[in-house]
């Protein structure tokens, strides 16, 4: 298998991967809710960080547990648990972000037997001067809880290893994302989605190795498809592979993203400081924020615009997860902000399954407005 194909394979066989990892290493697998969980600590503890994602299939098992007006991603994620697809997990951890997600975590904890569960109160007010001093204490408690659960101390050397592996992963993801900047882009948005999403559940050593090999493959690539219009994807938990494929089949390439299944997970490295836990916890306070945490100043918007400019996006698709209040609050303002800065936008509302036909007409018509080869 070529290195690049590994990511797609992992994406579609995530459960088999985790089971096989567990068998091979004898280690614990910890399901993570939200990209704010400090994967460095899990890695330091010798555990596998295993992001809980949905399957994008219709389901009818969550109705008794969480409300229908909770976001489709939350419902889809819980459905995977209720259906037993994550039955290999030894534990779960949620880093606090939104209420929908917390209820999902609570429901999982109440209805799906799991050895270790942990609620990590990541502060929403990351702009507060006390956010860092607060969060480092919470991360220390999380570390202690993992030590107690595993019956084994997490040493400084373990933490160094955790920081090194995750930071290396971030550097390598940046490096491969550079191939999206070229004209034509050497990496499609669909490929990048597979790559960035799998970083959230594949052992960093393996993922890093695959990234190194894939970067070499991509560097030598000659692009034989017409890239069309360069687009940006802005959203949240949008690992909507079928949607990305459709967009890239109608005359466009997604060249950059600002979403949890992408740059928001890996964009900044942990700055090395004398205190290892501070190194780790500060990274999450300083990272490009989720809308739940981007208050009172909206610091996310200039970051989104800078990404669009750096990757030469000609337009942006704003992918709104239905009922996701934090993004719903941002999106009308973000739309105006991007358009005022020369980036036209198309807003689409996503459910767990993708209505590709109705999306396609909207995307095609959006692309027609962006094309200069006019029909007049």
């Amino acid at each position, binding site marked *: 298998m070529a290195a690049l194909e590994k990511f797609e394979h992992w994406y579609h066989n995530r459960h088999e991967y985790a089971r096989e990892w567990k068998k091979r290493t004898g280690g614990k697998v910890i399901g993570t809710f939200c990209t704010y969980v400090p994967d460095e600590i899990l890695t330091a503890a010798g555990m596998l960080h295993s992001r809980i994602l949905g399957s994008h299939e219709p389901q009818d098992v969550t109705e008794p547990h969480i409300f229908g007006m909770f976001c489709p991603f939350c419902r889809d994620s819980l459905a995977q648990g209720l259906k037993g697809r994550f039955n290999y997990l030894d534990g779960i951890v949620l880093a606090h972000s939104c209420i929908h997600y917390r209820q999902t975590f609570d429901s999982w904890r109440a209805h799906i037997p799991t050895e270790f569960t942990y609620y990590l109160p990541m502060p929403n007010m990351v702009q507060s001067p006390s956010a860092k001093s607060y969060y480092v204490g919470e991360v220390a408690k999380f570390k202690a809880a993992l030590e107690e659960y595993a019956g084994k101390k997490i040493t400084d050397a373990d933490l160094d290893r955790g920081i090194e592996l995750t930071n290396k992963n971030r550097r390598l993801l940046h490096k491969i994302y550079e191939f999206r900047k070229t004209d034509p882009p050497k990496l499609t948005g669909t490929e990048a989605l597979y790559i960035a999403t799998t970083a959230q559940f594949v052992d960093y050593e393996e993922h890093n190795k695959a990234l190194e090999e894939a970067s070499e493959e991509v560097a030598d690539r000659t692009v034989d498809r017409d890239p069309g219009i360069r687009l940006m994807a802005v959203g949240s938990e949008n690992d909507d592979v079928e949607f990305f494929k459709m967009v890239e089949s109608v005359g466009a390439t997604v060249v950059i993203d600002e979403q949890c299944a992408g740059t928001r997970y890996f964009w900044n490295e942990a700055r090395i400081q004398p205190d290892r836990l501070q190194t780790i916890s500060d990274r999450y306070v300083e990272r490009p924020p989720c809308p739940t945490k981007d208050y009172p100043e909206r610091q996310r918007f200039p970051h989104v615009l800078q990404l669009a400019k750096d990757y030469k996006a000609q337009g942006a698709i704003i992918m709104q997860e239905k009922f996701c209040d934090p993004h719903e609050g941002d999106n009308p303002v973000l739309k105006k902000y991007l358009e005022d800065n020369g980036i036209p936008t198309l807003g689409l509302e996503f459910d767990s399954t993708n209505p590709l036909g109705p999306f396609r007409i909207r995307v095609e018509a959006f692309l*027609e407005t962006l094309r200069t080869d006019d*029909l007049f």
Partner: protein
Amino acid sequence: MAEFWRWKEYNWKDPDKDWKTAKMITAGIDVGSVSSQAVIATDGELYAYSSMRTGSNSPDSARKALEWALQDTGMKQENIQYVVGTGYGRVNVPFANKAITEIACHARGANFMAGNSVRTILDMGGQDCKAIHCDEKGKVTNFLMNDKCAAGTGRGMEVIADLLAVPIEQVGELSFNVPEEPEPVSSTCVVFAKSEAMGLLKDGWTKSKVLAAYCLAMAKRVSELLERIGVEKEFFITGGIAKNAGVVKRLEQVIGISAVQSKYDSQLAGALGAALFGQALLQKEKAAGKVA
């Protein structure tokens, strides 16, 4: 059983034009969710057209619409130099040279039908509704579509016509036969609106009063879409519902702007726009020496 929703299918050709003298012949085929139209343009002018119900098979619907437009013209399909497909079945028009979205085609068609001062177009189609902004050439600058709902669409109107046993062409006229405007029915869902209409009939409402309530609900529904994008003058309505005065007049009242009138059939906008794009594309191919 009578099918009250069933609108008349038709075709037309310009008796004063001789297609044999035309330098360029292009066609636009709009395979919509409910109706299909074929337009034949000669040198960028309307020459012939047809409008029919879309069948279960998109390629067949496209073929039939074109055949009917060609009827009695002496023209054969091979005389057409460029075909553009549009509508939800646009990628399934078997003989099309290119597929273009109906959003672009409606704007282009509206520009031809109602003049280049049109800036806002409301396309009230069979199964969705689109609000479109365009420039003086008829190029789309912005658009919005309704989401996942038949309220405010032709199919919704057909359901109500059937329920009330009123031929669809008479819905608009009959809806004005009320002493005063009633409250609108539910504007969020055709199924809810239908249940509500049945209840109102039981309460002794006349058919006209129910139709007035439904037309008003539809007008309010589409006005929300227009308000989200903003209505810039001139304002023009395309699609089948444009023929229903019961909705159009009420919509004009709700938004406080009158729609521009055109001598052309509003349902042709998509296919006509497609045929005109075909003309521009053919011209470019000729200029590039790709075709004779």
